[in-house]
C-alpha cells in the first residue's frame, strides 16, 4: 500500500477557505447477558471460541431468535434520541464474504430501521449544537480477526488470519447522524462532544458499558469539505473504528487538513475508507475491493418482522432516565462546582462515583476531592478506570466522615484509602489494623507537645518572643513524633497555649 505524499493545510487556513460537513456512525455493543440471536454469553475477554454455538457459528440447520432485551434497549436508545419508533420493521441479510462472520452474511437492518428521525443536543464552547439522528438500527457484531505475518500485524501484507467468534452475534446498535453542517472550526470538537454525549446517554440508559478502549463503543466519521460560500458538498471519506474521544476529534481535524491540502493543490478527494493511526494522528487509505462490493440486502427469512406495541413504547418512554445534560446541570448546581471542575469530573468518569459518595452522606467537596485527587492518582498508576478501583462510594464516604469527625487527618485518610485498595478491608478495619486513629487523647498529645518543646528550646524561645510562624516547626515535630497521627490544628493550638502566645 503506497500513500502519496500529501501536504496538509494548517487547520486555521483550511477553515478560512472551506466548510466541513460531518456524518458520524456510532456502534454500541449492548450489555445484554446473551447474544442477539442465541443464548451464548457476551463476557468480554473470554478465551477464544468459548462463547459460541451452532447459531452464531452459522452451522446448517440452526435458527436465530431475537433477544427481547436487545430490542427493548434499542427502542429505549431511539426514544432517548427523540426518534420515531417503527410500527413494523424487519431484519435484513447483508451478504459478504469475509471471515469475521462465519455465516457469510450479517443480520442487520436495511431500509426499515427500528428507530428513525431524531436529534440530540450537545454543548461545545457554551454553544448548543443540535445533531440530527438519521436512524438507529440493530445488528449483530462480528468476530475478531488476528492477522498473522507481514510487518505491521495489519490485514495488508498478512500471510493468513485467525478468527475468534466470541464477539460474533453480540447485539450491536448502529446510530447514524444526519449530515452535520455549519459547525465550521468547531467541527472536530462537535464530533467529540457528540460521541461523549452518546456515551453518557448509553450509560444513563444502562444499555451498554460503553468502554471505548474495549470496543463496546466505536465510531466512524465521514468528513467532506466544500468551499466557503459553496452549496455543493465535496466528496467524503470515512475514517473507521475510532476508539477514543480524543481520536474522534483528531481524526476529523486531520481529515480537514488533509482534504484541504489536496483540494488546494487542485487534486480530487477519493471516496474511500480510511484508517486512523493513534501514534501519528494521521489517516491512511484503507480502500479494498471487499469494502466496495454490493451487499445484496434482502429481508431475513429466518426472523419474523418486529412490530413494537405502542403501549409498550409509551411505557418505555415514560421510564426514560433524566437526560445526561440535564443531570449534569442539576448536579453542578447542587454541588456548587465550576464548569471547569465539572468537565474534569466528566472526563474522568467520576460524576456517578461522586454522586453515589454524596448520596452515602459525604459533603460534595470532600467526595470530589478524594475521587479526583488521591483515587484518580491511584487509578492512573494502575492503569484502571476510577470505577474499577476496589473501593465503593460508601467506603469513600466513610473516610470523609472519619476526617470530618476528627478521627483521621488527610494524611491518615490517604493511608486508609491505600489499605482499602490493597484489600485490607473496610475503612474502619484498616484504621483498626494499621492503628491509624488520630491521637485525640488530650493528655497524650499534651505530653508529646511538652517533649517537642523541650527538645527544640531555641525554636520555642522564638515563638515565645512573638515569631509565631516558627511554631510550624514544632507542629512538624509533633506530627513526626506521632507518625502523622496527631490533629495538626489541635497540636498548634496546644503549642501556642503552652508558650503563652495566642495564634
Amino acid at each position, binding site marked *: *500500500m503506497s500513500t502519496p505524499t500529501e501536504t496538509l493545510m494548517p487547520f486555521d487556513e483550511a477553515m478560512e477557505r472551506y466548510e466541513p460537513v460531518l456524518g458520524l456512525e456510532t456502534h454500541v455493543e449492548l450489555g*445484554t*447477558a*446473551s447474544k442477539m440471536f*442465541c*443464548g*451464548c*454469553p457476551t463476557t468480554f475477554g473470554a*478465551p*477464544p*471460541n*468459548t*462463547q*459460541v*454455538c451452532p447459531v*452464531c*457459528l452459522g452451522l446448517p440447520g440452526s435458527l436465530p*431468535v*431475537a*433477544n*427481547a*432485551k*436487545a*430490542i427493548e434497549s434499542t427502542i429505549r436508545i431511539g426514544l432517548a434520541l427523540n426518534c420515531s419508533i417503527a410500527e413494523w420493521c*424487519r431484519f435484513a441479510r447483508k*451478504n459478504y*464474504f*469475509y*471471515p469475521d462472520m*462465519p455465516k457469510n452474511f450479517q443480520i442487520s437492518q436495511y431500509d426499515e430501521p427500528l428507530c428513525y428521525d431524531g436529534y440530540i443536543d450537545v454543548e461545545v464552547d457554551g454553544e448548543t449544537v443540535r445533531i440530527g439522528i438519521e436512524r438507529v438500527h440493530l445488528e449483530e457484531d462480528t468476530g475478531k*480477526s*488476528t*492477522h*498473522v505475518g507481514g510487518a505491521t500485524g495489519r*490485514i*495488508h501484507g*498478512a*500471510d*493468513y*488470519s*485467525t*478468527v*475468534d*467468534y466470541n464477539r460474533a452475534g453480540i447485539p450491536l446498535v448502529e446510530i447514524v447522524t444526519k449530515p452535520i453542517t455549519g459547525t465550521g472550526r468547531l467541527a472536530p470538537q462537535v464530533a467529540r462532544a457528540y460521541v461523549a454525549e452518546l456515551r453518557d446517554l448509553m450509560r444513563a440508559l444502562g444499555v451498554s458499558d460503553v468502554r471505548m478502549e474495549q470496543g463496546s463503543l466505536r465510531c466512524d466519521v465521514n468528513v467532506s469539505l466544500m468551499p466557503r460560500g459553496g452549496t455543493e458538498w465535496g466528496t467524503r471519506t470515512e475514517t473507521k473504528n475510532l476508539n477514543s474521544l480524543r481520536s474522534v476529534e483528531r481524526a476529523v481535524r486531520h481529515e480537514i487538513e488533509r482534504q484541504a491540502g489536496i483540494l488546494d493543490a487542485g487534486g480530487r478527494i477519493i471516496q474511500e475508507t480510511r484508517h486512523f493511526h493513534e501514534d501519528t494522528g494521521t489517516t491512511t487509505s484503507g480502500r*479494498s*475491493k*471487499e469494502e466496495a*462490493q*454490493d451487499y*445484496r440486502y*434482502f*429481508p431475513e*427469512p429466518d*426472523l*419474523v*418482522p*418486529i*412490530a*413494537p*406495541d405502542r403501549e409498550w413504547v409509551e411505557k418505555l418512554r415514560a421510564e426514560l432516565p433524566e437526560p445526561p445534560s440535564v443531570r449534569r446541570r442539576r448536579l453542578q448546581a447542587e454541588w456548587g462546582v465550576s464548569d471547569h471542575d465539572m468537565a474534569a469530573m466528566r472526563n474522568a468518569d467520576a460524576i456517578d462515583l461522586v454522586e453515589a459518595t454524596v448520596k452515602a452522606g459525604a459533603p460534595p467537596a470532600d467526595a470530589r476531592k478524594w475521587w479526583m485527587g488521591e483515587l484518580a492518582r491511584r487509578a492512573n498508576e494502575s492503569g484502571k478506570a476510577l470505577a474499577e478501583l476496589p473501593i465503593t462510594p460508601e467506603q469513600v464516604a466513610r473516610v470523609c466522615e472519619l476526617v470530618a469527625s476528627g478521627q483521621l487527618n488527610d494524611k491518615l485518610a490517604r493511608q486508609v484509602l491505600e489499605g482499602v485498595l490493597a484489600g485490607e478491608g473496610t475503612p474502619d478495619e484498616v484504621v483498626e489494623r494499621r492503628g491509624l486513629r488520630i491521637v485525640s487523647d488530650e493528655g497524650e498529645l499534651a505530653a508529646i507537645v511538652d517533649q517537642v518543646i523541650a527538645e527544640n528550646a531555641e525554636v520555642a524561645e522564638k515563638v515565645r518572643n512573638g515569631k509565631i510562624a516558627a511554631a510550624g516547626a514544632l507542629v512538624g515535630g509533633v506530627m513526626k513524633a506521632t507518625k502523622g497521627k496527631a490533629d495538626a490544628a489541635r497540636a498548634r493550638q496546644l503549642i501556642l497555649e503552652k508558650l503563652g502566645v495566642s495564634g
Partner: protein
Amino acid sequence: MSAITRDEVAHLARLSRLALTDEELDHFAGQLDQIIAAVARVAEVATDDIPPSSHALPLTNVFRPDEVRPGLTPQQALDQAPAVEDDRFRVPRILGEEA
C-alpha cells in the same frame, strides 16, 4: 424484463467467490434469465390488493428472553474447521496482493 448480461453474471460470480469459465458465464446468463422470468410470473397474479410479503407466516415479535444457554466447547466448535491455530479458526489471506 431485460436480459441478464454476461457482465452481470461475472459480477455475481465474483461476489460469490466463484471462478467461472467463459462458457459457464454464457450458460448461466441464459439460465438466470429463465429463472428470473419464471419468478416474474408471480407479479402477474399479484394485484394491488395483495401486499408484498417476505414471510409465509403472519407472525410478528417472536423474541426470546435474555438468558444464557450452554453452547459448544472450543473443541466442538473447531472440530470441523479446515485449519486451527491457538483455538482460533485459521483462514487464508483475506486481502490479495493487489489490494
